[in-house]
């Protein structure tokens, strides 16, 4: 556990970056510090590994005062990932990952072997090991940065906007892998971001900070979306939060789906025409996995005699029983036929659900969401 | 001739008053010998640098040849020039050509780097707004490259002032003559005045020419100044 005890950082000239911060980051959980620029979130993070020294107050890791050990020794036990990876350009990927173990006196062979393991763990192929950072894409560099931070197996990791410099598609991949890694490793992580969506997605606990370096609210993600304490937090958490809060409620296995007539790829169009319901028929593959919708119009105007992939409308999203209510509602709303496709965990079709039925389900199960919607916009 | 004329400041004043005509003419020739090669070098470097920025394959040989020319000591170049140009050993043309060669060796690469460093989004925006290639070069790329090019010019002009003085050792008349004269007059005992006058004038000339480049740079890049009107 990382504990801030009335920590203040005041710069010469009087600017107060962090003001009397009291915060606990629980062991094995991800605590996200989020807020607008100038709120002191990065300063707070950097006071944990003493990249910045507090003006007053203490930072404790598992009850031990961080100021009791030398900064270098303290930092070797804390993983550190920053926005622009900060990889050493003159060292290969494998040697970059091995940096901290080598500083700690691990022999080169062991350190390299461990590096190669980690490379795989962060989803990079082994042949990347001999490359130099300049030969990697931004997303790959960030993965190597994460691997480097993990190399000495530190219990604590500090991550300073690690995914904000990559494009949205890569960012989402990195976030998903972060969640996968963290569920395996269970590190105590403090994560800084200015992106509230990222905070809600990754954080077990979210600390919203306001300009001037004070805490506005500390809460779990669904709690934060449902009950922002004041207008500042509500404004920062933003619009659509009722909808976004649905992301924290799981679709029950008893979800009331309707049976849907389907046609397989490769079956005849005549069959497809017979199974049209309100102008649409759902196409599945041989394993009963949904492939897309076929409209009455394309059934009639098709030149082929068979159902082919290129005639399909791919507009609808899929929901799964283990997924969130948000996915379920989105599947219902985005489906061209008006019927949201629901699958089991393995991707096999369970049935479809109408938007009205999805909303009814939300009313029954999504108490937090209803709560959030009930409060309305206060910002 | 020597000790009687004395060292120290009074000697300097006496020396200057008795030799002012000579000193002025040396200062003048030193100035143009320093400046003309920079102007020639700039005129040659602009198209060369443009070619290297535009066509990638031109850049490596340009850098290599420039680097090679750079390694040749100036005195060696001054001495070899007559046999290349068919000039007399004391012809100032030797100095002008040799220093122009150095300036091109330095500036062509600087121009290429400066034109190559124009931000891609600016270049794209200019093209998208309908600038033709030559228009973009003159109205966008070149103005943005000015600060880098003038930085190169400052290095070239300050170096030239020192190099021109070296030409004095083989007898070309400019401020270097003050040093050779001082050296010869010191054979029986130190005689500082011409040497001191020479050092002071060379430093002053270098600073003034440097300042001229800075002023030109500022005039050409009003957008870099704080509070510039737009």
């Amino acid at each position, binding site marked *: 556990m990382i504990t801030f005890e009335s920590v203040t950082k005041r710069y010469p000239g009087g600017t107060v970056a962090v003001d009397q911060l009291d915060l606990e980051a629980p062991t094995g959980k991800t605590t996200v510090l989020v807020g607008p620029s100038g709120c002191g979130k990065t300063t707070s993070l950097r006071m944990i590994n003493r990249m910045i020294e507090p003006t007053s107050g203490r930072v404790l890791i598992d009850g031990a005062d961080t100021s009791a050990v030398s900064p270098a020794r303290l930092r070797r036990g*804390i993983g550190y990932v920053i926005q622009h990876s900060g990889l050493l350009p003159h*060292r290969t990927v494998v040697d970059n990952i091995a940096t901290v173990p080598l500083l700690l006196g691990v022999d080169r062979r062991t350190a390299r072997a461990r590096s190669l393991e980690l490379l795989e763990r962060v989803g990079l192929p082994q042949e990347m090991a001999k490359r130099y950072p300049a030969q990697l894409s931004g997303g790959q560099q960030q993965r190597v940065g994460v691997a480097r931070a993990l190399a000495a197996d530190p219990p604590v990791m500090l991550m300073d906007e690690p995914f904000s410099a990559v494009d949205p598609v890569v960012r989402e991949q990195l976030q998903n892998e972060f969640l996968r890694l963290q569920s395996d490793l269970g590190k105590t992580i403090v994560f800084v971001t200015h992106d509230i969506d990222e905070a809600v997605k990754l954080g077990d606990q979210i600390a919203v900070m306001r300009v001037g370096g004070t805490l506005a609210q500390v809460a779990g993600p669904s709690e934060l979306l449902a009950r922002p304490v004041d207008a500042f937090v509500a404004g920062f958490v933003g619009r659509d939060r009722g909808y976004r809060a649905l992301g924290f409620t799981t679709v029950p296995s008893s979800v009331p789906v309707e049976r849907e007539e389907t046609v397989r790829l490769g079956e005849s169009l005549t069959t497809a025409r017979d199974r049209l319901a309100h102008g649409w028929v759902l196409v599945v593959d041989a394993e009963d996995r949904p492939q897309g919708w076929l409209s009455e119009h394309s059934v009639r105007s098709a030149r082929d005699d068979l159902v082919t992939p290129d005639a399909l409308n791919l507009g609808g999203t899929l929901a799964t029983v283990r997924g969130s209510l948000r996915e379920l509602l989105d599947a219902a709303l985005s489906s061209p036929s008006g019927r949201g496709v629901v699958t089991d965990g393995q991707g096999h079709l369970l049935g479809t659900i109408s938007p009205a039925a999805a909303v009814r389900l939300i009313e029954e199960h999504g108490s937090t969401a209803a709560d959030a919607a009930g409060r309305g916009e206060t910002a | 001739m020597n000790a009687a004329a004395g060292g120290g400041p009074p000697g300097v004043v006496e020396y200057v008053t008795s030799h002012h005509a000579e000193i002025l003419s040396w200062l003048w020739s030193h100035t143009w010998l320093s400046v003309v090669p920079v102007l020639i070098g700039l005129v040659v470097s602009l198209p060369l640098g443009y070619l290297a920025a535009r066509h990638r394959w031109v850049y490596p040989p340009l850098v290599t040849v420039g680097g090679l020319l750079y390694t040749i000591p100036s005195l060696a170049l001054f001495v070899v020039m007559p046999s290349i140009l068919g000039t007399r*050993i004391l012809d100032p043309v030797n100095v002008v050509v040799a220093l122009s060669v150095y300036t091109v060796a330095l500036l062509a690469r600087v121009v290429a780097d400066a034109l190559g460093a124009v931000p891609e989004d600016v270049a794209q925006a200019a093209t998208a707004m309908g600038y033709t290639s030559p228009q973009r070069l003159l109205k966008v790329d070149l103005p943005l490259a000015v600060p880098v090019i003038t930085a190169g010019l400052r290095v070239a002009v300050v170096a030239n002032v020192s190099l021109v003085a070296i030409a004095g050792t083989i007898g070309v008349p400019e401020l270097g003559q003050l040093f050779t004269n001082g050296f010869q007059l010191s054979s029986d005992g130190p005689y*500082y005045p011409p040497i001191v006058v020479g050092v002071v004038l060379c430093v002053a000339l270098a600073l003034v020419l440097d300042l001229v480049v800075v002023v030109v740079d500022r005039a050409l890049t009003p957008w870099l100044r704080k509070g510039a009107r737009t």
Partner: protein
Amino acid sequence: MSNAFTWLTDPANWHDQLGTPGIPAQVVAHLEYSLGAVAIATAVALPLGLLIGHTRRGASIVTVANGLRALPTFGLLILLYVVISPHIGGRGDGPYLVPTEIVLVLMAIPPVLGNTSAGVGNVSPAVRDASLGIGMTGREVLLRVEVPIALPLIISGVRSAVLQVVATATVAAYVGLGGIGRYLYDGLAARDFSQMTGGAVLVAVLALALDTLLAAVQRWTVSPGVSGRFKAGTAQAALGPAGAARPGAPEAAAEEGVPA
């Protein structure tokens, strides 16, 4: 030029005779003055440059050192010779050598100091920050991170210094010191143009050889990750905002060389 070739290939010029040193002896003498001066200058400027770059303080020292460039080399040489040589007794080269070495050292300091401090000072803040953040001490950051990254600039500073000094050492023959410059001034005095041109060729070749040697050292010591010279087959377009700048760009940005 053909006369120079005749002069250079005349065996008589390659042997010491009647107290006149031959070409090998003059080349060795030239190398001694030059490399001695570069060694002294590097011993002073390299640690100072590392310190200024690492602490990011004392940039004014670099500015002052750069001011030395405005001094006319030849004028300074004559001035120091006239001031110093009367105080150095004895025979031998002392009266010529001491002022010459001082000038050569002064000429060699600015490129080494400027390039070293700029090279170290311009190491990306993200890399410095990350290196400190993963637990390197200030000394480890300097030696394991900043120096390897700044190495191309540091070596190119030394290369500039060598070229500067080899060239200026030629001029030192004017006050009476040995070295290749002798052929230029003796040839001039005797109107022996083949000797002059031969000497010019010699000194140009010497400068080129030294520069090539240092270029090889640079190529050998600088990490491919810094120079951008990746092995064939592993090259991949550098992407993303953190991708390194174009290969060679850092060198181009702070080239300090001026001919001498």
